[in-house]
């Protein structure tokens, strides 16, 4: 059974890239469009990895990461934060929220896939 990646991303075009990329790499992709959806999906779909955008409606990626990592039964799921805010404090903020890896947008799909593979193989 293929590994499941939860993609939290509010932009359809960016979701499509990941859809194509993950499908090609043989992963199953679950989608959430905002932070709240991410929390529900993390609990109900039990993904093997979460790709978390930061700028999200309702609940931002930092907060969603923090809440998932606060739950003992979900804490083990690796979270890769993807952000287009390349401000110098962003990486520290993402790490502080508890993420496992950090990728700045625009990302190289090749490198993103390498990061995902590192956690799932």
């Amino acid at each position, binding site marked *: 059974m293929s590994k499941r990646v939860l993609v939290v991303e509010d*932009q359809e*075009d*960016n979701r499509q*890239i990941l859809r*194509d*990329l993950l499908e*090609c790499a043989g992963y199953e992709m679950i989608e959430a469009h905002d932070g709240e959806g991410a929390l529900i999906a993390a609990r109900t779909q039990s993904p093997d990895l979460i790709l978390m955008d930061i*700028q999200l409606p309702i609940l931002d990626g930092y907060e969603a990461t923090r809440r998932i990592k606060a739950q003992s039964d979900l804490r083990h799921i690796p979270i890769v934060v993807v952000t*287009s*805010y*390349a*401000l*110098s*404090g962003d990486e520290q903020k993402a790490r502080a929220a508890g993420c496992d890896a950090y990728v700045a*947008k*625009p*990302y*190289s*799909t*090749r490198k993103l896939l390498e990061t995902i593979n590192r956690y799932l193989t």
Partner: protein
Amino acid sequence: MNLEADPTSFLGQRPLSAAPRASGDGASVKDGLLGFELRRSLRTKLLIAFFVIEMLLVSVGVIGLLSLREADQRANQVVGLQQKIEAYRQMQHGALRQLYGVSTALAFPNETTLAGALRQINQFGYDLDRVSFVAKDEVALLDQVREEYARFIAVVSHIVDLIRNGRAAEAKQSELAELGPLADKLERLTNQMVNRAEADMVAGIDASRQTYARSQILVAAVAIASFVLTLVLGHAISRSVIDPVRIIHHGLNRIAAGDFTQRIEVANRDELGELAAHVNSTCEELQQLYRSLEEASRHKSQFLANMSHELRTPLNAILGFSELLLDGIYGDPPQKMRSAIERIQRNGRHLLGLINDVLDLSKIEAGQLRLSLADYSVEELVSGVYISVESLAAEKQLGLRVAVPTGLPPARGDERRLAQALFNLVGNAIKFTDAGEVWIEVEAQKDSYVFSVRDTGPGVDEADQIKIFQEFQQVDNSITKTKAGAGLGLAIVKRIVEMHGGRIWIESRIGHGATFSFLVPARLEQQAMQT
């Protein structure tokens, strides 16, 4: 996106004349000099001060003249008394000679001695007249003398007549019985007058001496008082001018240093008070202007940060899909399509570089960029840059050479930002050089490193050498027009170097290439203040 900022506040369009003018403000401050409630101009103050000083000088002169006059009067008095005394003595002398004349006439009764005795009478009358002239205030005594003298003359005339008539014995009798006592009485009276005059003279000399002493003290006191008063006045005047000037000077220094919060407080109500009020109102205008500029600058930085974020999102899709296409996820693309996708990707990356530059600059300007200081190796930094520009230089068939001293101790700074700075300089050198070589050199100086990038490009005109470090500036000539670029690279390099407390400069001549160098401290422990 956050673009609702009011465009007018952006430009800080505030009429400069809106701030209140100075004229009314001066009236509320108290006058320091002499406590006048009236509004006085500086000229009036100075005129008053000089007038007071002149009046003091005049009063010293007047008091001196008055004292002189009094001394003169006293001297005249003493001279008068002396004359009086002399006249009295003359009179006494006259009376004695009279007696002598009569005695001679009695002893040798002939016409000569008789005439001599009578002549003495005339002389005595003359003396008496003189006395009456100098001793006007002793009328009673003088009348008594005159009365006695009249009787004396009468007796002398009688005796002379007796002698002429040969009645010598009778004359002798009369002399002894009448003339002697009368002469004694006259002498007593004149003695009395002399004594009185002498007493007056002693008193006069005494008074004169006292007057002199008094005048001396008075003149000295007034002179000293004038001196002190003049000093005090001069001090007060100079203070009322210099103090406010000094206060205004300090205030202007503060304003020049960018502190608009304090107002200049001057107690004057003269021209200087007006000047201070004027400076204050100008300071307020400046403060408002400064605030609106600051606000505009903040808006600009925020706008740029938002904008670059918004631009990155679609760019992510462009770069992402083109990468997936090239990786053959949607099937292997034919060669022509592959080269088109590569162009999309290359241009997308270029666009991303520009957006990153804008974001960097806006972060630096907004004060959001903090250096992350850590130890780094200069050799590694340079070789990292070398690796990333190697292919660019090879594409243009340019030589790329590196000269870094070996065995340098670890440096301290923001390695990523310094690499970005060096990368920008080398990237520019490659971009603008069509043939020849590009050198990357590092020189270790005392406590600092100098990174230099030398090229064989077109060079930079002296007039443009300052301009190129400003954002959005590119040297405007036919050579550079053919090269793409937003003109942000050097501005970013300059900011990064300055944040490290270093400096950047260029040495170049048109047609002889250019050398860009920057100096940074070898070990930076704390980020330099941003200007």
